[in-house]
């Protein structure tokens, strides 16, 4: 036993020493590529989103490199797993810094993104998150986002429902253990109250009880709700839709960008999602660029991209455009690049898969109009 301890201690020292050495050997020397570091969950429960971002970002980088790069320089992407955990996300960020990342693409999920933003701000590294929706993700001036913020989605949803008279009695089912879902729900509830939209049932579930929704649906049905608002992701929505069908409850279903991708669920019965309305900046048929992207993505990865993928794809092209705007070169330091990109971001007007003529304010928020999408005959249809 004693001997064992020695072995372990020795191994540990060796490991520590080795890891430090790898740190020193960070090969920042080659200055002919822009180094982009991506962060997102590629293992764990949120792996769907992180993997989509990783794949799409890689696709965009490959396309750009094949077309001659940015200002004549190539892009390099290194994507690190954060398991949807703030601490792991900071670890991933530090790993990327050791690799020599000059620009951070991420994090994919909100809470980790906030933690990373604290570090990028301290190091003055430019950060653009494809899908970190919480308000605090872009609290600092070096951080920008491609997606909508949570409050925006909640407010727009309430307004759209009210203006179009989609329903009079609203029921909400949200994930009370999730930042994204509660964020949207809260702003939706607040806006609904000011608009006089009646919420008759507010039901929740958590990450540990996200399979059985029969009670929540039954309560919504008993309350006479004619519209069901689902500020959640499509994997849970798919279950809710099939369970609602079982109890023959057919309200108008309204959702947010988390719903995009439901038709891509392997083996999913699309008739269940018929008539679902949701707000999203993207579907695979929203514009010409989206169609090209979707085709390329499907060819490479064998599945239809969701909005996470689209946001990430756009994020890489936004970085490209901003780099070109500022005439950046890879030999600049992270800090110089950050200042340059910060200035460039508020000047550029970007058109991509998730919208046309998007501009950014210094607060990091994009100006883009959400598109209302309805599922008709098993395809996303723009309304």
């Amino acid at each position, binding site marked *: 036993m004693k001997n064992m301890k020695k072995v372990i201690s020795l191994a540990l020292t060796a490991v520590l020493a080795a890891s430090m050495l790898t740190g020193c050997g960070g090969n920042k020397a080659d200055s002919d590529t822009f180094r982009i570091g991506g962060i997102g969950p590629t293992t*764990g429960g949120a792996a769907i989103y992180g993997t989509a971002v990783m794949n799409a970002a890689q696709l965009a980088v490959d396309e750009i490199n094949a077309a001659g790069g940015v200002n004549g320089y190539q892009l390099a992407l290194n994507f690190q797993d954060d398991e949807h955990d703030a601490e792991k996300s900071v670890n991933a960020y530090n790993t990327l810094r050791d690799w020599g990342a000059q620009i951070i693409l991420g994090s994919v999920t909100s809470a980790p993104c906030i933690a990373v933003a604290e570090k990028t701000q301290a190091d003055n590294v430019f950060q653009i998150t494809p899908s970190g929706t919480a308000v605090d993700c872009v609290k600092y001036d070096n951080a920008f986002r491609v997606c909508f913020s949570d409050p925006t989605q909640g407010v727009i949803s309430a307004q759209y429902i009210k203006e179009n008279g989609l329903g009079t009695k609203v029921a909400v089912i949200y994930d009370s253990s999730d930042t994204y879902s509660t964020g949207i729900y809260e702003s939706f509830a607040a806006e609904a109250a000011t608009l006089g939209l009646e919420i008759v049932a507010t039901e929740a579930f958590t990450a540990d009880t996200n399979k*059985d929704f*029969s*009670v929540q649906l*039954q309560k919504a049905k008993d309350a006479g709700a004619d519209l069901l608002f689902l500020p959640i992701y*499509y994997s*849970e929505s*798919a279950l809710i839709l099939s369970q609602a069908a079982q109890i023959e409850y057919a309200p108008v279903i309204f959702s947010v960008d988390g719903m995009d991708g439901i038709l891509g*669920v*392997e083996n999913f019965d699309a008739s269940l999602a018929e008539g679902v309305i949701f707000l999203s900046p993207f579907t695979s048929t929203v514009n010409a660029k989206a169609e090209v992207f979707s085709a390329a993505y499907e060819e490479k990865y064998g599945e239809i991209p969701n909005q996470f993928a689209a946001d990430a794809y756009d994020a890489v092209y936004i970085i490209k455009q901003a780099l070109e705007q500022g005439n950046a070169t890879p030999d600049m330091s992270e800090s110089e690049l950050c200042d340059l990109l910060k200035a460039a971001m508020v000047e550029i007007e970007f058109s991509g898969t998730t919208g046309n003529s998007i501009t950014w304010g210094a607060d990091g928020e994009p100006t883009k109009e959400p598109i209302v999408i309805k599922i008709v005959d098993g395809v996303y249809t723009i309304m």
Partner: protein
Amino acid sequence: MSFIQYLINGISLGSVYALIALGYTMVYGIAKMLNFAHGDVIMVGAFTVYTLCSTLGLPPAVGILVAVVLCTCLGISIEKVAYKPLRKAASPLAVLITAIGVSYLLQNAVLLIFGADTKAFTSVVPIEPIKLADGQISISGETLVTVLVCLVIMVSLILFINKSKVGQAMLAVSEDKGAAQLMGINVNSTIAITFAIGSALAAVAGVLYCSAYPSLTPYTGSMPGIKAFVAAVFGGIGSIPGAFIGGILLGIIETFGKAYISSQLSDAIVFGVLIVVLLVKPSGLLGKNIQEKV
């Protein structure tokens, strides 16, 4: 009327927990180990059926059969490689930790093979929901089948353990490994058989679980694994009828908690009830209270 519907919903959720808990408690009662990888064997079973039936288009019966065989083999090999070397370890916790390692291993292996995307599982139960009281109350086919399968498995397990020779050997091993060995029982193979049965039940549970809640990811198994553990302890460790009752009650409490108290706090309600029950009955609902001797 809604009360009855909630009750049915509770039973339907509980029957799934019970089904998983039956396999869990089997291993738990006899090999005396918390098999944290049980939930992941369930997930492997579900993925097998998904691949065979939804992707390759084979009939469900074939899929289930292959899944049962595959999971049985998987269970036996996990036991052989990861658990058996530690059976005589100084602490029973050691094997618990390898079980966690196996759980990570299975999750990540499946993640690499199938990817992280959610898959919609096609139900293997072809029965239409039954409607009562002018359609106000509905019972899904999956619920009927799950409850039925649960009862069949429970009764046959009880019969198997109490009547058959192998079952008796299992009981002997669970009471005292050393004494069992002296009586000529092959402890190694008895425990291997226990794992084989437990894993076969996991495959069946996986198929029915995913039929009732048709979404499948590499992490599908971890939550029901823990819930089955809770149900097994709730009913009394090692008690087969206890696992069934524990599972059903767990489902009903969860559903009623959501329906009548708060859906935000449903986890807290379930676990709160569990704590209270265990404080009143410290060895579970049907558990034996063994008096400790000096």
